[in-house]
């Protein structure tokens, strides 16, 4: 049995093409059903996000399966096959396993380490499980992919560092202030980045927002948006001590917060630390504020630098992640290849036994002077013959799991003796698991 992957991603296709082949989650049942009705396709899962559209499937016929899925993607979306084909990639066997493990671990993402993709694959798998298009192999495969992704996330620092300025600010704030749920943010001035950062702080649990702006109406409007409190710009220094995080981005030509102000504010809050973030150019906060005890000052350049360092770290951590994936592929591949051994042996025995019984019945039916113990003897004779004949192939098959030739043997046996193909919901297999 083989796992195949067919799809396209931001690496091979522009957004115009990606949106044309996207599968809407609201109507995912139809394509899933069509997918598993394709000839030779046994199980299927469709993953469709804004950055990639991929189909994972199992088949006996790799080349045919891939071709049929490619055609299916074009036909389902009423696109000319030729125009789509050049954007599609496909993987099978080990490279398919590697690809899915990498995607789930966010190594193939546009921003390496971003956490959404794992959730998206889980949702996609959820649909496939709900509509019964995935079966024993893909179930096991995707659960393995989820656990690999989890391993990558916990054992490497791939997702541990912020790669946007706003997130870098939140991370730093947590390192200074600990839990943000009882902390207040003060916004001085306005500006896209400032507001974005404030939003991030609120999403990370910050308690409240104070807004100061030269135009009080604007401050009031922003405060309303954030569910915070507006403060008059003229008196914002009076409120400095109420904030644990101060985000400043006014258009002022000179500094509006000096070391004295910071010192005063820290003192008024009984030396609890304040985290100053200066997003303005030219600067709003005097660099000397950094020397005030229990005040921590970061400018947008500092944050930018952190982001750059984190990006470099991520690509370094990605190498560790690849090692983890290498290990896990080996394990999964082994499971996959030994998966069919037992059912094949059972099917082979049943086949032989069927023939034996049929021939036995025929012989006995046409026998006239039937000695009393002949049936017993014949039964024993044929059974012994069958067992002897089957002994060598069975033991070779059982041992071939380690050698890696098992796929070949299973395929050969199934074709030579016309054994039935593995079903999607093979109960025997469920038991074996």
């Amino acid at each position, binding site marked *: 049995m083989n796992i195949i992957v067919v799809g396209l991603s931001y690496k091979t296709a522009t957004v115009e093409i990606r949106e044309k082949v996207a599968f809407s989650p609201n109507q995912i049942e139809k394509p899933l059903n069509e997918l598993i009705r394709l000839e030779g396709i046994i199980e299927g899962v469709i993953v469709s996000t804004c950055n990639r559209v991929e189909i994972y499937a199992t088949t006996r016929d790799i080349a045919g399966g891939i071709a049929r899925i490619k055609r299916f993607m074009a036909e389902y979306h009423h696109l000319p096959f030729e125009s789509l084909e050049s954007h599609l990639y496909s993987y099978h066997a080990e490279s398919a396993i590697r690809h899915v493990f990498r995607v789930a671990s966010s190594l193939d993402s546009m921003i390496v380490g971003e956490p959404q993709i794992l959730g998206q694959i889980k949702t996609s798998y959820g649909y496939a499980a709900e509509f019964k298009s995935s079966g024993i192999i893909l179930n096991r495969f995707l659960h393995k992919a989820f656990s690999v992704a989890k391993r990558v996330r916990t054992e490497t620092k791939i997702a541990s560092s912020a790669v946007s300025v706003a997130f870098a600010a939140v991370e730093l704030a947590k*390192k*200074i*202030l600990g839990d943000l749920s009882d902390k207040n943010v003060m916004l001085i001035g306005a500006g896209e980045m400032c507001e974005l950062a404030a939003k991030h702080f609120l999403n990370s649990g910050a308690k409240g927002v104070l807004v100061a702006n030269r135009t009080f109406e604007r401050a009031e409007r922003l405060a309303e948006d954030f569910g915070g409190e507006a403060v008059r710009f003229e008196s914002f220094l009076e409120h400095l001590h109420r904030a644990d995080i101060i985000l400043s981005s006014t258009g002022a030509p000179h500094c509006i917060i000096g070391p004295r102000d910071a010192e005063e504010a820290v003192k008024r809050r*009984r030396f609890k*630390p304040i985290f100053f973030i200066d997003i303005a150019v030219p600067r709003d906060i005097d660099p000397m504020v*950094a020397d005030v005890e229990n005040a921590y000052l970061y400018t947008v350049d500092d944050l930018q630098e952190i982001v750059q360092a984190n990006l470099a770290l991520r690509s370094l951590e990605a190498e560790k992640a690849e090692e983890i994936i290498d290990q896990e592929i080996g394990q999964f591949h082994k499971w996959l290849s030994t998966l069919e051994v037992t059912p094949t042996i059972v099917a082979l025995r049943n086949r032989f036994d069927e023939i034996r019984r049929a021939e036995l019945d025929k012989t006995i039916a046409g026998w006239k002077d039937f000695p009393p113990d002949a049936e017993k003897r014949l039964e024993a004779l044929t059974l012994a013959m069958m067992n002897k004949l089957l002994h060598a192939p069975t033991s070779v098959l059982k041992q071939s799991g380690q050698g890696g030739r098992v796929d070949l043997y299973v395929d050969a046996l199934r074709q030579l003796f016309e054994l039935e193909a593995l079903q999607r919901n093979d109960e025997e297999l469920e038991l074996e698991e």
Partner: protein
Amino acid sequence: MTHLFFILTVTLYGCAAALYLACLLRTLPLLTLWAGRILAFGCTAHLLSTIHLAVNMKYLPLTNMQESLSFFSLAIVTAFIVFERKYKVTTLGSFIVPVALMMLIASSSLHVEARQLPPILQSNWFWFHALMAFISYACFTIAAGVAVMYLIQRYFLKTKHLGALFQKLPSLETMDEISYRCLTVGWPLLTVAIISGSIWSEKAMGNYWIWDRKQTWSLIIWLIYAALLHGRITIGWRGKRAAILSIIGFIVVLFTFLGMKHSIIW
């Protein structure tokens, strides 16, 4: 038997210390898990060895430097395990467990002649006094460890060196909180220890306070931590100042513990 437990304890503490230090370098959940487990095993072995010794000798093993160092180490490890459970600060182990290990090794290197227990020590007030003192010392040790971590983390934040160690260390706020908690537990216990110690002194020698070196220095320790706690509660002393003061406090504790013999017993 005691010796066997002791070897086991040293080995386990050694492994735990190595694992905690490794935690600083690598991020592996298994590493943290096993560091904690091995330390817990070590602590159990240490406790059993102490109990075994106590049962054999029919008194708490706190009567000479060897026994005291070992007990100090046990108290530190126990306090650390409690704080780690509560605040999930693995990195604290990298600072604290090696200290406990060194104390234990130092304790084993001291050779002490077997001796009769001086009658002066055969008082319940003495046992109570010593026990309280060690628990408070253990709290101060944790506070000092956290203070060192705080200063390192503060340095990283101020100079914007945000490397791997920065990521590992807890937030300033968490460390501040642990340090405060250590003080609020340690200082009252020290107070109790000093009071029970002087009661014992009265029972044994007829005098509550004899101004020997140990007593004097204990009083100095008490004053340092009292000042720290007072500053914290009234003015809000925290951060760098509090960290430096609790490191000074700990140095004085060590100095008193190692350098100041009780004029009456040792």
